[in-house]
């Protein structure tokens, strides 16, 4: 029972972005993927979500090979995600943005969506109530009908987490969720992530900010130059000489 990638290699022209990388997340576990800029974190994230196709290696969900599946299929199988730069309709309401998250769980036909008094119509009230409950739980906005564009960056990130949770995922993949947000929002976000893991979701955090990840994750994976250089308990990974060298720019620790 896990979401795992194994033997992932991907090259962009002559540049080796990932070289035989393996990473896995189990239900209820928070895994932090750290590394300096250009280490291949986002590329690995894209391989897991289906945005990028690796040249070698496999992605497996609960033992089933999903390497060939496209992004929208993986979402329906239970891989929820957020974006590094929040992606949403800023002119639309906060409630509508969260309600979009229910889409993968609904099997609604276009005809049903068009007709009055249809099944789609009856679920609409229920979806609206559930979205409002999520907005209240995450303290996203006092007024769910206010435009999403009025939220701060931190709240937009939280909104993306709420939207991803609305799709009832088994695994939640977060791309740089803590980048550029203030301490209050960061605490709210950390709490949301802990709650999600507490409910049995596997969480993969891709982060630049080692401190935030070390505090939150059960296990950490450090990626440098497209290869896994350290893996294990947060304290061990943070203290690993290669990780320190990569972050502090030291060329090589004297042997």
């Amino acid at each position: 029972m896990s979401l795992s990638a194994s033997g992932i290699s991907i090259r962009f022209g002559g540049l080796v972005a990932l070289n035989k990388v393996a990473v896995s997340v189990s239900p209820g576990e928070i895994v932090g993927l750290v590394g300096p800029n250009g280490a291949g974190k986002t590329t690995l994230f894209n391989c897991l979500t289906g945005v990028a196709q690796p040249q070698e290696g496999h992605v497996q969900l609960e033992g089933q090979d999903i390497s060939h599946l496209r992004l929208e299929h993986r979402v329906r199988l239970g891989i929820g995600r957020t974006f590094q730069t929040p992606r949403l309709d800023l002119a639309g309401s906060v409630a509508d943005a969260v309600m979009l998250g229910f889409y993968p769980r609904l099997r609604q036909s276009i005809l049903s969506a068009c007709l009055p008094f249809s099944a789609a119509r009856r679920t609409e009230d229920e979806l609206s109530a559930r979205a409002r409950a999520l907005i209240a739980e995450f303290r996203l906005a006092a007024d769910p009908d206010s435009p999403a564009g009025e939220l701060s960056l931190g709240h937009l990130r939280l909104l993306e987490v709420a939207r991803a949770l609305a799709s009832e995922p088994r695994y939640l993949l977060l791309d740089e969720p803590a980048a550029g947000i203030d301490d209050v929002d960061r605490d709210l976000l950390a709490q949301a992530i802990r709650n999600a893991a507490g409910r049995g979701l596997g969480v993969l955090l891709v982060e630049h900010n080692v401190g935030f990840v070390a505090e939150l994750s059960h296990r950490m994976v450090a990626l440098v130059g497209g290869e896994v250089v350290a893996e294990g308990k947060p304290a061990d990974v943070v203290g690993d000489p290669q990780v320190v060298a990569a972050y502090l720019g030291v060329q090589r620790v004297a042997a």
Partner: protein
Amino acid sequence: MSRDARLWAAPAVVVAAFIVVMLLGLVRPSLHTTMFTIGLYALIALPLGLIYGQGGTISLAQGSFAAVGAYTSAILTTRYGLPPALSVIPAVLLPAALAFVIARPILRLPELSLALVTLSLGTVIAVGLQRGGDFTGSYVGLSGAPPLPIVGKDPVLVAIALWTAVLLVVVMYSHFVQSARGRALNAIRVDRLLAEAMGVNVPLDLATLFAVAAGIAGLAGWFYVHSIGYIAPDSLNVETSAHILFMVVLGGRRAVLGPILGAAFFTFANDFLPGAETHGLFFGTILVLILLLSPDGILSPQALRVLQRPFARRAPAEPTARPAAIADAKEAVQ
């Protein structure tokens, strides 16, 4: 506005406006034919409003899809003796199928390229109709199409039948935009990667709606040929498609009623303006002026919000209402 009010506001406006104009038509009978023209344009423009305004997918082929529907029905009724009540089915399905097949490769193109590709599609259809020999009636077209079933040739009944179709499309459009499918289409316009990440099958959704739009245009073509009794390559063509896009953009592509308002504006302006050669100048100027003032057209979300503001102020003390709403939501969770 409550959810039900938002669902039924646009259909109610259509019904009210239709009744008023038809009653005025008792005094001035030419209004009945004007109403027919507006309804025809509205029927072709409404689905374009949906795929362009909500889905960000432009099309300059709506007029040509209407022509395909009209020709299909004309050929089947005049050559094969099919009654119009039956020929309506292929008149809708043929343009829809055509649109669905070509949609997949072209709908991934950016807006301008898509406009050009759909424009050239219209040109290809026009050339096909002109060079179709006896089968399509060549440059002369086809005449002798029988009148519409049940309503016959009575202009009032024809207008009622046509506007019933318009009303149905408005009802379905209003419901669609406030559904999970409608939100998915909105996500496609905002950001295709976002839509995919939300589990939306973007190519299939766009192709389906493109086909539905073409099918509804085909239905308008069917109304056209069986009311006028005649169809030629110039009746519904690339120029019609451009006019339809003008109506959608001017009236408001984001609003359900935008295309209808645009169709009404275009038709009335055509009737009252002297000299056809000045029309282009007039429409061009109006379009530039409106888009400068309101980039989303006359019925834009911003313009509607301004109209609603005086009513919103009358609502009782907002700050107390907000915590209550949250409390309600919390109860809903428990």
